[in-house]
Every structure is written in C-alpha cells, then in structure tokens.
C-alpha cells in the first residue's frame, strides 16, 4: 500500500505538486493520470525519496521509503527507463541491481526471460537500445527483487501494442496476487484498460479520484437517436442537462432514465450506453483544461 498525505512541492514560487493525497491499495492497480507536467513524476519521486517534499508525507507499506532496509525487495521502481549509464550492457545493469539487493545470480537470467530480452540483446550496450527495450529492462530491474509494491512512471512509453498488452497482463496478474501497483500515464486509454482505481492530476492538484467504475459512471450516458432535437428538448423540459455533440447526445443521467425520457418523447434510439472511453476522455480534458498545453478544439 502506498499512502500519499498532503504532499506539496514548491520550486521557488512555482508549485509543482499542491496538497496531493491519495492511497494506492493492495491488490489493485492505481492509475495516476494527468497531462505532461501535471506533477505525476514529481509526486512519484517524492514517494521514493529522490525529491524532498516541501510539506506532507508519503509512506510505502506504512513506512517512509528511506526507512526501508533493502527497498528493492519491497518496492520495485521504474521512474525513467533512459536514466542508465549508456555504456553498460542490459545484463550488467540488471546484475548491479541483483547484487545491491543480494539476490541469487540466476535471478538476472530469469528476469531477462520474464521481460523477453534475448541473451543477445542483453549483451548489447544500453545506448543501442530502443525505448521499448529500455522499458523492458527497467521493468526487469523493478521486478527482480520480487517486491510487493510497484511504482512505474509511464512504463508503456515506447512499447509496441504487443508489449503494452504484455505489460497489462503482467501488472494485472501482479495485483491479483496481492501486489500494489501505482503507474502513471498521460494516455487515458492506457490507464483505462489497466487500472482499478484512477487518480487524476492537473496543474499539481488532484482533480478527481476514485474507482474506475465510479469515474466511468460519473462520465454519464451517451445516446444516439434519429431525432436528437426532440430528445434534447425533452431533457430540457425535465431540467436534465444534456449536450449534443455531433450525432450523439451526452448527459449525466443514468441510461435507464434516458431510456424512459426517450420513450415518453416517442423518440426511437439508435444507441444507448454508458459513456466509457469517450466520456472519461472528455472528463479528463475537461478536468485538466486549465493545465492543458493545447486547448481542446472547440
């Protein structure tokens, strides 16, 4: 379990992380979602003690990270897959981690196999690695101590679709066996397919958090109909907020209510569903609008 309690980090007058509190629970994958520069990485660095928080505390399994006697055995960390000495081979980097943690030597080859780096690739220097290979090596470094907690910053960056699928299965299985996973991403879809809980951050502040199911519900309902105008006026009469975008209508009302309204209005629906990806994305853009570099297209 990871507990972040009222963490604030200032750089001079700039506040990178502003009073952030959340919990990543055991047995669940917690997705840390936010646009670039929102404060995800800074928060993660505060958790593992690389950055000192201006105020607030962060604990892993109830203890401050720096108080862990052999952190690699309890927390697997991948903050930046490219932050390695370019002149070392992949196998050597993994060996250094194995030796720091005092693990048996055969763990290195085991982990190379787990992350599908061939012996040939492992013998190459990291400067010749693609980003995807570096991510795999970084994940191997995080997993080698068989920790209970994983903290991964943008681990899917540079992975091909098969690699993303592989990582999703790996993290899912890991959480199902009682592990805690905190992973960040600026890509909503990635978080959506993998996370149980979502913490959304924008401009250093938490803008929304909860289980994925709750957040999806909060995203409302999407409905398509042949006569959208009639349907919208029916909603307006009932005082239910509804917005039309393109050929569909979005509302915060539950699908059952939307169905009843349509029936009363005598409008034939062509589609009725809980807003999933699109809804959450809209919420993501909306919630983080203030911190977006590119304004959402009107």
């Amino acid at each position: 379990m990871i507990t972040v309690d009222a963490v604030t980090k200032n750089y001079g007058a700039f506040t990178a992380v502003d009073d952030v509190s959340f919990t990543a629970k055991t047995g669940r994958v917690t997705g840390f979602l936010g646009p670039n520069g929102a404060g995800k990485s800074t928060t993660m660095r505060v958790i593992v003690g690389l950055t000192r928080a201006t105020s607030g505390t962060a604990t892993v399994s109830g203890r401050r990270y720096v108080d862990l006697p052999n952190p690699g055995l309890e927390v697997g960390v991948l903050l930046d897959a490219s932050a390695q000495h370019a002149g070392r081979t992949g196998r050597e980097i993994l060996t250094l981690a194995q030796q720091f943690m005092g693990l048996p030597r055969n763990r290195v080859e085991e982990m190379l196999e787990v992350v599908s780096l061939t012996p040939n690739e492992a013998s190459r220097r990291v400067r010749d690695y693609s980003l995807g290979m570096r991510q795999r090596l970084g994940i191997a470094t995080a997993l080698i101590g068989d920790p209970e907690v994983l903290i991964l910053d943008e681990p899917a960056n540079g992975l091909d679709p098969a690699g993303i699928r592989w990582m999703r299965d790996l993290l899912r299985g890991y959480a199902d066996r009682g592990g805690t996973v905190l992973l960040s991403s600026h890509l909503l879809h990635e978080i959506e397919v993998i996370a149980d809980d979502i913490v959304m951050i924008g401009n250093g502040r938490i803008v929304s958090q909860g289980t994925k199911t709750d957040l999806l519900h909060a995203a409302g309902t999407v409905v398509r109909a042949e006569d959208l105008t009639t349907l919208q006026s029916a909603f307006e009469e009932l005082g239910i907020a509804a917005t039309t975008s393109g050929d569909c209508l979005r509302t915060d009302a539950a699908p059952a209510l939307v169905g009843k309204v349509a029936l009363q209005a005598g409008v034939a629906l062509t589609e009725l569903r809980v807003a999933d990806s699109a809804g959450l994305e809209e919420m993501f853009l909306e919630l983080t609008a203030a911190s977006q570099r590119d304004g959402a297209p009107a």
Partner: protein
Amino acid sequence: MTALTAGNLGPQRGAVRPIPLMRVTQVELRKMFDTRSGFWLIASIVITAVLATAGVILFAPNDELTYSTFIAAIRFPMAVILPMIAILAVTGEWTQRSGLTTFTLIPHRHRVIAAKAIASVTVGVVSVLLAFAIGALGNLLGTAVTGTALVWNVTLTECLYYVLGNVLSLLIGFMLGVLIRASAAAIAIYFVYWFVLPTIFGLLAASVTWFRDLQPWVDFQYAQSSLFTFEGAMTGEQWANIAVTGLIWLVVPLAVGLGFVTRAEVK
C-alpha cells in the same frame, strides 16, 4: 513468467535485512570497471606508468637512473588519472543519470558516497602498488641496459608518503565530483585546482614577501610536495602544513558537497 507465478506476494517474507556497506562498496567497485570508458581509464594508469618508465630509461642521464626517478616520473600521469577515476565514479550517477536507480535502491545517499570513496581509494592504492612494481621493473631493466649501478634509494616510509600523496590527489578529485556532480566541469576545475592555483600561489610567493612564509599553510600542493621529495621522514611542521591545507582545500569543500548530495533532487 516462471519467476512471477511462484506463490503470492506479501507479508510472508522474512524480515528484510539492511544492505551492508561492504556489499554497496563491492557493487560500486564493479561499476568503476563495467563500462569501456571506466575500464580504459583504469587501464591507462598501467599504460601511462609503462610509458613514463620507458621515458626515464630513454631520456634520463645515467647517474639519475634510480628508483626514485622512476616513481617520481610515474607520479605525473597518476596525479591526473587517479582524480579523474574518482570524479567519474561520483559524477556518473548524475551525468549518466544512473543515480535514479542507485539512490532508489540505496536511499541513504551518504552510504553510496562512502562506498564510492572506499572503492576509489582501493583502486588508487592498488594503482600505486602497480606503479611501484612497474617502476621497479624499469629500474632493473634501465640499469641493465645502460650498465649502471642498481640504486634503490626509496625507503619504506617514503613509499608510504608516496601512497598517501596519490590518495590525497584522488580524494581531491572525489571531493570535486561530490561538490560539482557534473563530469566535465569537475574535471576542468580539477585542472584549475592542480595546475593553475599552485602557479598563482608560486607567483604570489615570489613577489609578495609576507606570503612566502604563509604559502606552506595555504597552498595544498606545495604542502604535499614534501610527500614526493624522497628526503627521509617528514617534520611535524610539514605534517601540520598538510593537515591545515587539507582542511581548507579538501575537508571543508567535501563537507559542503556532501550537504548538497544528501539534499539535492535526483532527476
């Protein structure tokens, strides 16, 4: 997926023991050799020691073909390469950004720095011992080739001074690595420290009378020179010179650097 499907994760694991400093030191020592640049830098000690020895045999007058001439010649490349080894051992964590991993695996940064210090001094001492051996071979070979008498004019005490002097040079590099944490800048400043500063002090001593008496208490390199003169046991005052200048130029900046290292953000 064999490694990951074995049993549940969680609190059934036995108590985790702290990582011993010895193990951190061993890994840090390994890190000094496991890149091509690191390996060749250390190998260059042997290479330059051989070159310096060959130079003495070729160019030194016959009556100066003594053991002290050989190891004094080897001292020049050592004074450049040993500090660089120590600088790169420290700055690599920042310049190459591997510190992101190192300092998450060993969150107490002063332990990593201590391990690096021990590993660097170990490399330094072993290098000096190698230099002694290479110098001795040079002395044997040189006198045999020129047919001059074999002279071993360095006492054990003087050998120990020589080791200490080289370790001090290495520690200057180490200190700059800790203080500056960037490879190129630290190396550049080392050259200022080692070549420019003593020149300025020398000029100052030559032109300003009152500074002449002060120089041994201010100029670290001047104070250390008694370690390399091979003139028997040093006096208490000479030791005091080394202690005072060492405090100013080595201990204080190292303490400042350690303060930075433990507080600075690792990115």
